[in-house]
């Protein structure tokens, strides 16, 4: 592994009694990157995150943050990280201001700066109006935003977020995603898990897929497409269908066809197929057979398709 990783997990394994949660996970998180961590429920995503932020001990393997081993140096390491749990929980008697003030002070923000920091952070997240409200009276979505506020207030270099957008309404989700993009511009390193694969695809520079405690893929979307061998796809919309299904099956490299709506098809082709040649052939076949084409284009597989395919094939690194 290169030595410039901000976070390096080397052969990390963790068991809960007889259940193995992580099996030899090795991962390097590069400075300034946004890393999406996906996997089925129970795959070990939260366990990885809790180890990374120092909440879980008794694991085998090594974790270093900024070159400093996590075990034995938790205090030093904790200063540089911000963490948003799946469900941010606060003592219910606190107001948002009191909660942020305590966490800000504990993270090293001087007393003289805390008021201004709280105000600026709440404004950035768009929840200035809740500053004096009791935490116990807030909705789940707003609590999650307060959770993000406590994580970013001290401007940490590393942000670790466990399903940060789960439970947010579409507008808040959009706002969170904008914040993520800002973090990237500011050079922060972001590690987040999510089940919303379209968000991961939108935001992550690299993606890690975890399955049954094993990291089965780490790489960019392009690398994922290459390794998953999903094949190529062509989307076709007809204005008149004269038995197109028969014509589509004649094309070189044909694998399958999905009739996704009236007169709309997705043709799946082998990975090695020359797409330009295939599209030309499809047009020729369809016209010869009497169908009229409204549109035809190559389409990229989504992360969701790649992910399902990846797990189904059980591809390992």
């Amino acid at each position: 592994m290169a030595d410039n990783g901000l976070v390096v997990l080397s052969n990390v394994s963790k068991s809960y009694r007889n259940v193995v949660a992580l099996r030899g996970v090795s991962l390097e998180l590069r400075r300034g990157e946004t890393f999406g961590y996906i996997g089925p429920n129970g795959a070990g995503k939260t366990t990885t995150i809790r180890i990374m932020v120092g909440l879980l001990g008794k694991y085998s393997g090594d974790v270093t943050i900024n070159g400093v081993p996590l075990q034995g140096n938790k205090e030093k390491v904790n200063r540089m990280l911000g963490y948003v749990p799946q469900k941010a929980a606060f003592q219910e008697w606190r107001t948002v201001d009191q909660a942020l003030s305590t966490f800000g002070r504990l993270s090293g923000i001087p007393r003289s700066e805390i008021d201004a920091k709280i105000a600026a952070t709440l404004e950035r997240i768009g929840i200035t109006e809740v500053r004096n409200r009791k935490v116990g009276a807030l909705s789940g979505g707003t609590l999650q935003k307060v959770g993000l506020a406590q994580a970013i207030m001290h401007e940490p270099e590393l942000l670790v977020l466990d399903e940060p957008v789960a439970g947010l309404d579409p507008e808040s989700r959009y706002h969170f995603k904008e914040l993520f993009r800002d973090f990237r511009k500011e050079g922060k390193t972001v590690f987040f898990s999510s089940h919303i694969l379209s968000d991961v695809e939108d935001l992550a520079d690299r993606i890690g897929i975890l399955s049954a405690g094993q990291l089965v893929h780490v790489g960019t979307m392009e690398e994922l497409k290459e390794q998953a061998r999903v094949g190529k796809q062509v989307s076709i919309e007809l204005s008149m269908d004269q038995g197109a299904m028969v014509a589509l099956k004649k094309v070189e490299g044909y694998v399958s066809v999905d009739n996704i709506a009236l007169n709309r098809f997705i043709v799946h082709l082998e990975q090695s197929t020359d797409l330009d040649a295939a599209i030309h052939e499809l047009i020729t076949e369809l016209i010869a057979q009497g169908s009229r084409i409204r549109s035809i284009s190559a389409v990229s597989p989504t992360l969701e398709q790649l992910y399902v395919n990846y797990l189904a094939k059980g591809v390992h690194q």
Partner: protein
Amino acid sequence: MSLALLFKDELNGFYRSKVMIALWIGLPALALLLFYAVPSSTSGLSVAAFASVIVSVIGGTISSVMLAVTIINEKERKVYDLFFIRPIHRWELVIAKFLAVLLCVVVAGMLAVLIGLGLDTARLGTLPPAIGETIANSLLITIGMIGITTSASALIGIASPSVLVGVIAVLYGSNQVAGVVILPYLTAGFSPLVSFAVAMVVTAVMLAIACVYFERKQM
């Protein structure tokens, strides 16, 4: 710095809780009511001493149950995660909670003793004899008992898997342990200072166990 901040913070939470308000106002009132309503049970005792005993027994029970339940709930809801990812020691959180509850109950005890003292003075027409000694003894016993119940409750809160188990353990465990202070004082004529010293040792041991356990516990 962290311990002072956490203590101030926990104090802020506890002293404004409904339980503590009930403790500060309700318990001195209850002590007075019992003193005058059941005079036979209090013969020979001053109002101040009786109020002190009532606060340490009932107040100690209420506050220790509250502390254990608070810790169990906060543990279950993973409230501590956001503390633990910061550069603090876990034991600081335990000590902060312990000191906050102890201080609140001790203040309640002092209030009760002072009110009792006022009533004793009004009843006798003068300050009761050996007033300084009475107050000091009452406070020593109160603080000793509450120290034990509170530290035991912190330990029970950290170790208990559920609120029900925690409450049962506090009621049948920590309050019984507190007997090591009051029983020798009431029945064997031990000096309050000796009882207080024993209480402080027991408190320190239980608090140390609670801190070590909290440091090591996987949550």
